[in-house]
């Protein structure tokens, strides 16, 4: 049994490679990822609504697999659904499965609060529409978003303009893994008073550069995979992680 210490259930919005790869670089021995995948490929309001409607059934499937904790991922699913939608989903999952749960948005907000920060620089691979909904969600949660970047077709970077033309999970997966660092640097340059940096999205290699960004810019960093793992470990009482994944894990 690989998951003798904990089995973390994860609902991926799409067939996914990044999460499985990064998860096992962070977790200690005895923790396993049990994942189920939805079919969200093109990312727009219509497909996000479909994913929202499929989330609870996916959670029940993970409950049948007897996981210890459930993560529902995909910030745009919740930022477009509206304020409180993440809490509502967590409550529904708990009621239907009896299991503790979080969403990627909820865990990021809790992580930023645990770091006692308020002013944020946010680096994203999202088009402007989802940058706005994310900014709105973070501000409603009490943060001040000094700067948020994303993608557009006008960007003079080949992969990012391709992503803007076709905002989809496959195009996110094709981003070179240094792109999150470069987007983080751009965000920090425009928000030097930021107390922390948030890099949402579990489909780009943001977690890889947490320590690099923290060292270079001197502020704590919260990413998608790192924050929901932190939330799961906090609930399950696990206090060990592999080195290099940020100041957030000092808050365990």
């Amino acid at each position, binding site marked *: 049994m*690989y998951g003798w210490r904990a089995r973390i259930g994860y609902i991926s919005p799409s*067939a996914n490679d990044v999460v499985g790869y990064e998860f*096992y670089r962070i977790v200690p021995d005895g923790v*396993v990822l049990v994942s189920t995948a939805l*079919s969200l490929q093109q990312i727009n309001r219509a497909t996000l609504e479909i994913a929202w409607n499929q989330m609870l059934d996916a959670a029940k499937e*993970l409950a049948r*697999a007897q996981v210890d904790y459930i993560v529902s991922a995909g910030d745009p699913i919740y930022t477009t659904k509206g304020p409180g939608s993440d809490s509502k989903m967590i409550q529904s999952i708990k009621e239907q499965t009896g299991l503790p749960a979080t969403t990627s948005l909820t865990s990021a907000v809790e992580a930023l609060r645990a770091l006692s920060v308020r002013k944020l620089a946010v680096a994203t691979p999202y088009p402007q529409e989802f940058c706005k909904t994310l900014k709105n969600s973070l501000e409603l949660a009490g943060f001040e978003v000094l700067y948020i970047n994303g993608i557009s077709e006008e960007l003079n970077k080949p992969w990012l303009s391709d992503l803007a033309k076709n905002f989809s999970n496959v195009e996110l*997966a094709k981003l070179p*893994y240094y792109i999150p660092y470069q987007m983080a640097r751009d965000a920090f340059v425009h928000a030097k008073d930021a107390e922390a940096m948030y890099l949402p999205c579990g489909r780009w290699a943001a977690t890889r550069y947490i320590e690099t960004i923290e060292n270079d810019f001197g502020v704590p960093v919260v990413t998608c995979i790192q924050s929901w793992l932190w939330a799961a470990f906090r609930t399950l009482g696990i206090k060990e992680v592999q080195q290099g994944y940020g100041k957030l894990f000092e808050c365990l």
Partner: protein
Amino acid sequence: MYGWRARIGYVSPCPGEGEVLDFYQIAPSGVSLVVATLSVQRIDQKSLSSALSEPLDRAIRDLAEEEVDFIVLAGEPMVFLGGYGSEQHLNDRAKKITSIPFTHNLPCAVEALRHLGVRRVAMAMPYIVRDGEGRDVTYERWASYMKGAGFELVGFKTLGQPSNRDISYLPVYASYRLAREVYEESGERPEAIYIPCGRWPAARNISKLEYDLGIPVVTSIQAWAWKALKEVNIREVQVGFGRLFEGWSKRN
């Protein structure tokens, strides 16, 4: 992009678990696993038939949209229940959906055993499989399949687990101990041990078994990883996954 060298699409019969961990122990850097999932929990004809209908088409389509380089569908019972050669209908179905090369993991194991030049095979597995009338047909159907594939089944042992969740709970050493038992109890000396099922931690016991028993070992994940890497023209693996990879470049 983690899969800059190759992205292998994987259809897991149920929420994915140890397979991802094992894959990244075997694969070289630059190769990622993109996971889509079905919902087979109990291993019986009804659950398998349900998974092999629309959900399978959806999963293949999801991986095609992810633009993976190769697709593997896992779950030996899906094929051995139908008899040797029945995997062809899965290949034909996949071809209607995508031109991306596709295989099922059972023919990968057959190809691996043939590559090793063996004929007398002993098998150690964790599950039992029931037919539509609830009869345990595990040995009967495996024996028929292996005979059809040209092998002589000289030993067969199973731990009798009825569901994927139950298999997940088996200790890491379970496959090692069962493989040793079937080797020692086989009527004729086996030329290889075949350990199907990607759900239990068999891959990490390959080198120990090969050293201790002196014969090659083929497991589920090792065999499809070998096939997939070969098909995408990669000949590098991490150290410790058996004679099947003889002649390949090995890295720690």
